[in-house]
């Protein structure tokens, strides 16, 4: 549940989601669920030449299982906190 909690705290922030098919979508994180499905608002495609169809999309729902990376705002990342939390999570605690 670690990343679910973590992303919940990032709701409202700008993120870029890179999918496993290489598509990258930037937008405001609207919501996330336990499967790390992501809903973005004000979306725009990062590489418009590769995916012109997506230009018009305002909001989108991205299936958690197709996400490769979620790029975070630098000030949205508390490395110490993440470090401890992931360590604890890995121990099963």
């Amino acid at each position, binding site marked *: 549940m670690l990343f679910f909690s973590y992303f919940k705290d990032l709701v409202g922030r700008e993120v870029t989601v890179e*999918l*496993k*098919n290489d*598509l990258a979508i930037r937008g405001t994180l609207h919501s996330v*669920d336990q*499967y790390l*499905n992501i*809903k973005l608002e004000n*979306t725009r495609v990062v590489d418009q030449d*590769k*995916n*012109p*169809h*997506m*230009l*018009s*999309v*305002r*909001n*989108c*729902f*991205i*299936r*958690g*299982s*197709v996400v490769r990376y979620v790029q975070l705002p630098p000030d949205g990342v508390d490395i110490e906190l993440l470090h401890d939390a992931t*360590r604890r999570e*890995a*121990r*099963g605690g």
Partner: protein
Amino acid sequence: MVIGLRQFMARVGTGAGEPVLDTDNGEELVHVQPSVSIALGNRSPDTPGTLYITTKQVVWLSDLDRAKGYAVGFLSLSLHAVSRDPEAYPSPCIYTQIETEADEDDSEDSDSECNDVLDLSKVTEMRLIPSDASQLDTLFQIFCECAELNPEPIEEGEEGGHNWVFSTDQLEDETGEGDDAECHFHQNPTNLIGHSNGDHDLARTVLELQIHDQRFEDAEEMERVSDSSHHQHQ
């Protein structure tokens, strides 16, 4: 369920022509939207048709041709969105991306040369165009809800999804002590994890691994241990 878009021809009886669902496995119809066109890849829209959204999949059935229908499971829908910009597509629609079996390059999504020979399993984009555009937000919402009903199936065998693998050694290593020392860090001793996290049991386990693991024994010692009668001096 098969990955990707596929043909769907199983319709109920004669009259309503609703899709046959897998009710034995709990599939239910969630929403029906009449007067919806479907556009696969770059092809022009197929119309008229009816959209059926179930708890497992999205089905479009042609109103004219009873043998024509398409379906895609929510497990295969990578993303969906409401598209309203006329520059991207002339009609407001639900835009979806479909995950295909061997996700090749984007341009494989449709057979633009041959009109009818379309390999459905390679379609990566699908647009659903309702004649009533005011329904788009509702449809988007329903897509979201049904997508959430279809998370990735979990592999059997672990609770809480803790199926972490830390090194290839772990795969061969049939350790009996998997219970309290869940983490096997077969890494070099400079790795901080076993040392710095204050959990003494874990630290001890990591150190023990490093000290007693046979692979780290000197070759000489091993020879001596296994072959006590023949001394081979270096």
